[in-house]
């Protein structure tokens, strides 16, 4: 019944998300006006902060990279009918895998240690999603509940490890030592410098290309391969999947592992691309933003790229804005993100009825 009978495809694909986005921005604007700031000026500052100068663009794309991975993670599970809320925890655990590899092997050359760290991110992130996947497939424990709980477990586990086990000796902060340079994923400005292209110094790194590759691969697997076919069959009609001889349990478990692994790759961008050490709480809500990215991007790579870019811009522009306007705190930006999630996710069909009625009238008049 969710099928909007009277709406052209382009409208439900493009017009509706845009309307939802504008509604969210409008409400944010009202709140900004309430606290005595000028919403239009704030919007200008944000856009300028995100895209107005080279460093801004670099930071925007850096955030976008992580959001692409966590967005893909949510979308992958979604195609199998699973709502993976646990991207945050999976990314956190993937960070542990990356950290363990780097602390042990960062004396090895980059071409060994970086692939090794990536493998660890994939394995640890995947394994953290495997348990909820297994429980869903074999025991019917609801994936939403288990993945949320696994976020808490991950958080507590990592706090303990960072405070008691991995903390740099002699330091008061719950963080590891800095990884050796061998383990750093090359920055974009470093990569392009030998070619004579001068880029600003930002944390934007080669993981960005990995994210773009992941988008393409995601598209191919989901819509052009038997694996994706099987996944979507399970997600859309489990009975038909059983009829078709698809091992539903195995698919659910495998898809959750892939989802966790994708979330895990965001840890590469953050740890090996930017901080070069593990800090407590380094995931910083990136896993949760992935849910919004996937919802808004309609679980399609193109949509995910665009919505990851939006959230990247919101993060970077928001930070710039909060420097300029002390009245607008970081929490205000999170509030805006929350509104976007609300309008694009929970209230997704807010404009559907009036819009399809409008299209119906238009068709009649033709």
């Amino acid at each position, binding site marked *: 019944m969710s099928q909007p*009978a009277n709406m052209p495809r382009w409208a439900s694909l493009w017009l509706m998300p845009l309307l939802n986005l504008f509604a969210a921005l409008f409400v944010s604007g009202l709140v900004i006006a309430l606290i005595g700031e000028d919403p239009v000026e704030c919007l200008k500052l944000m856009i300028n902060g995100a895209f107005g100068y080279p460093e801004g663009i670099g930071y925007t794309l850096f955030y976008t990279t992580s959001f692409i991975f966590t967005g893909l993670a949510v979308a992958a599970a979604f195609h199998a009918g699973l709502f993976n809320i646990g991207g945050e925890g999976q990314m956190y655990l993937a960070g542990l895998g990356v950290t363990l590899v780097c602390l042990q092997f960062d004396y090895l050359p980059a071409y060994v240690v970086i692939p090794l760290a990536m493998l660890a991110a994939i394995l640890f992130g995947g394994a953290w999603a495997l348990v909820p996947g297994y429980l869903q497939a074999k025991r019917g424990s609801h994936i939403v509940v288990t993945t949320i709980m696994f976020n808490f477990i991950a958080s507590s586990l990592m706090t303990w490890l960072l405070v008691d086990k991995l903390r740099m000796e002699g330091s008061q902060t719950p963080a590891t030592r800095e990884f050796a340079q061998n383990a750093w994923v090359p920055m974009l400005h470093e990569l392009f410098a030998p070619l004579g292209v001068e880029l600003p110094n930002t944390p934007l790194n080669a993981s960005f290309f990995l994210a773009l590759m992941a988008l393409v691969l995601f598209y*191919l697997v989901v819509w*052009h391969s038997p694996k994706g076919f099987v996944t*979507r069959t399970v997600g859309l*009609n489990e009975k038909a999947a059983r009829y078709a*001889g698809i*091992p539903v349990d195995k698919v659910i478990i495998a898809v959750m592992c892939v989802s966790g692994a994708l979330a895990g790759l965001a840890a590469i961008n953050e740890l090996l691309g930017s901080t070069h050490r593990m800090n407590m709480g380094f995931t910083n809500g990136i896993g949760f933003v992935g849910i919004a990215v996937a919802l808004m991007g309609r679980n399609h790579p193109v949509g995910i790229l665009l919505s990851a870019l939006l959230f990247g811009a919101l993060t970077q522009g928001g930070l710039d804005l909060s420097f300029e306007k002390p009245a607008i705190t970081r929490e205000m930006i999170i509030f805006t993100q929350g509104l976007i999630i609300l309008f694009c996710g929970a209230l997704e069909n807010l404009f559907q009825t009036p819009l399809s009625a409008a299209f119906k009238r238009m068709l009649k008049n033709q």
Partner: protein
Amino acid sequence: MAELAIELIGVNKHFGEVHANKNITFGVRKGTVHGIIGENGAGKSTLMSIIYGYYQADSGTIKINGKAERIRSSHAAIGLGIGMVHQHFMLVDPFTVLENIVLGAEGGVTLEGSLAAARTHLQKLNQDYGLQVDPDAIVGELGVGTQQRVEILKTLYRGADVLILDEPTAVLTPQEADDLFRILRLLRDQGKTVILITHKLREVLDITDDVTVMRAGEIVGQVRTADVTKEDLADLMVGRKVNMHLDKAAAVPGKKVLSVSGLNLVDSRGVALLKDIGFDLHAGEIVGIAGVSGNGQSELLEVLSGMREATSGSVQFKGMELATLKTREPKAAAYRKLGIAHIPEDRSREGMVKDFMTFENAILGYHDDPSVRRGFLFNRKAIIERCRRFIDEFDVRPALTHRRIGLFSGGNQQKVILAREIHANPDLLLIGQPTRGVDIGAIEFIHKRLMQLRDEGKALLLVSVELDEIMALSDRIIVMNGGAISGELPAAEATATSLGLLMGGHK
């Protein structure tokens, strides 16, 4: 001209670009049984939904007892004395009959008061219309026929003068259907008006006074039942002459393909669903399994197709024991590779993925086949070519490979599934309800195709609740009742009566 209970004048209804009801004008005489027949998608259900207030007409007038009304909800329809008995009952199983009937019409502060009042009222209704329903019985424990009577009682309790019944006999044995007709006649004689939506011509001739025939959203005939024959109605429905009988040559059974013996299935609650099932099936023959739905036929198909594990017993396919077969992949996949194809009973929920395009549904179950792959990816071109062949060969309309299959009519969906399963060139074809919800034109096509497969030497096991279909196609007929085989007879000796008795468990 007799008084009209319901009159529609120039009613139109659109769904997007689909004109579901075109300029409908007709009347239902008070105190008659009025049949509405038409193929699937002819617009019968839409029309009834408009009368019952689910949909609003785009234009036109509806008159109830001669007075123009706007029916905005089913609540308003009930207020006007219109009641509807749905195909799928809207009953709460753990409640008693009385509780179900009062549900939604409770008056007063406490339930006890309204229940007591209802009991008196119910007893009167029970007597007046010969319904014989025990008000204190638990609904879930009643048979389907009785549950249907509870639904009728519900509408009467709410003061219905016009009863609309949507395909009421789809779930009944012939004997139960006769019982229903007896009640409907009684209702009519007591002054009620009955509207019967059906696609079974025999029923229309049996019980109705007037018939309205719909085709493609329009009314194409309004006649007194006494003035027409079965063939007339069928022609009106389809718009051309229909061949109601298949010209079929005698079967030439070949080698034994399937041999089932001592097959039992007990579910997790300990209920025996299949009891000691045994039969043989040969190449070049069609064995029909008749029975009222819910008597084990579905479970038998599930076991034979590998979707469900039997509790005990033996299933030999081309001499190979399947019951003890060990496979890495799910059995449904393994059986398919061995040469067992399956057209599932519940087409829309099992046989296809509604949100998938035609070409994706064309490979469901065969998506791992090397012929559709190129390495790790699909060979999209080969898949679409295959789908196009299916569409051409089976005359699927509209002929689109890139259209969500949920948007096709039931008949065209079934053609895609049939094409897919036949393409695998199976030795054994398990067929569940091949023409359920399929229009007459497509039924003819599907039946011919199945006969052709038989003549090519395939073994076909046909499960259907349509006796006409079973009798027209099968060479031998097995009747199931209560999970067991209650009888087997050659098709030539079978009559609706003899099968009906076996279906009811009378040997």
